[in-house]
């Protein structure tokens, strides 16, 4: 069972793994785009990811959600992955990391 430090490390590994998932329009990862609001890993190794999309109702949202779920689940040590889509707060361009 991971301790707090391991939980933080796992969350960071998940974040790095999510760099593989790109926003199809901008070509930048969902992390760089600021689409990942929160990554939490429980003591049991279950991950909870809070994400958004650049626009509400985006037709790519289901694909992005599944890709994020699959990517996070591929991290060694992560058991269950729960991805929650939110539009509160709505995404805006200032949330992007500067390249």
């Amino acid at each position, binding site marked *: 069972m991971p301790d707090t430090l391991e939980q933080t490390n796992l969350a960071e590994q998940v974040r790095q793994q999510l760099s593989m998932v790109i926003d199809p*329009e901008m070509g930048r990862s969902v992390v760089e785009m600021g689409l990942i609001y929160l990554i939490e890993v429980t003591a049991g190794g279950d991950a909870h990811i809070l994400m958004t999309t650049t626009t509400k*109702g985006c*037709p790519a949202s289901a694909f992005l959600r*599944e*890709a994020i779920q*699959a990517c996070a689940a591929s991290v060694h040590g992560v058991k269950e992955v729960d991805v929650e889509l939110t*539009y509160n707060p709505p995404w805006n361009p200032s949330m992007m990391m500067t390249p």
Partner: protein
Amino acid sequence: MPGATLSRWTMSYFAAALICLIAGLAMTASGFGYPSVPMNDPASLVVVHLIAIGWLAQLFAGSLLQFVPVIASRQLRSPHLALPILLSAMAGLLLLLTGFMGLADVAPLWTWMLPAGGILLTCSFTSLCWTVVGTLLPARPYTLPAKFVILGCLPLIGAALVGLLFTLPLSGLTGDPYLIDLVLAAGPSHAYLGLVGWMTITAIGVSYRLLAMFLLSPEKTRRTSRTVGWLMAGALAVVICGIVLDGTGSPAGWPLPAAIAAAGLAVLLYALDIRWIYRERKRKAVELNVIASLVAVGMLVACFVLFAASILIGNLAGMVMPVAYLFVFGWLTGLGLGQLYKIVAFMTWLEFYGPVLGRMAVPRVQELVNERRGAIWFSLYFGATAAATVALILDMPDMFRWITIAQLAAVGALVFEFVQTRRLAMAPAATRLPAGIAARRLFLPSFNGRSS
């Protein structure tokens, strides 16, 4: 989860629409219809309806089926109607065109053809409105694009019903004097309802969302945007009054020019909105689809400037057709082709790369197109459209036909680009999918994955 899906039949709508556009341009280039014969000649009506219903209406219908769920953030209502709407529109159009050809003495004339075509088209457009409005109405609070799209459905039904009424005296089924008066007087209002009332109001509304989205510009409901909506709604009310007056045998000359003037003012405010969206963008690199849309908006503004100038110089009658031509091919078709350039790539990406996202290297949407080549075709298209408008103003029909060939070549080249995009021909080598996957789904739907 709030969200939208891939519209299963939208690519088929686009394919049908592009075939009609190419057929319409080829007919014009060959000397069939206007300007080789007068605008009210049945041969001209064939070309006009091929472009208006076959090309533009199917382009708009296919796009709405894809983007209304995005605007409403909810699933499309009655998605199973998508194919019947397309098939009834195509069957209705075929009957209508055959009926016009009968009137032009190039095909046998059966009296039932025009009304039967009108009924099918009315059913198709009514079903489309049912789907669109049924998706948007429960999605409160209404966004600005949603309000424009809902408003646009009213004139669409109006244009279809007026067109259906026209078919009765045109086919000889009735000699009712009121209907004959309606046909003689309300043709331009019928065109206004379809081209300005439905298509322009819808295009303006959707572009507020799409341009802000593509340019990463803040989505704001500006006072000018709301005024655009009110002016367009007022203009519609005036046009409908004019049609009622035409039908009661007391036609008035003022409603249509008054409506066009109000719409012109709305267009100027819309152009200001677009300028703000462009200036406030966070995405500095502007893609070809946005540039094409901006050129189309410029041509829309030019239409109303030419209209105003023709009134000032007292040559309104001589300028009506060049302005209408610029409106249809510069504004609506230019915007449509520009947006198709993006939508085809975006939907292709979703269809083929969405399911493997995060599992393998995938391209950006923009890597599915060749912008350098596309820019050449768009330059040729817009240049030819501007030149064709000038040829019409200068009353040079032969020159116009030659220029139409250039326009046809540009559209043909763009269709080739769309096919290349669908076949993933431009995708970087590292992101290529196994050969044959894309080739099988050029314009028919995938029956796997998320489509509605």
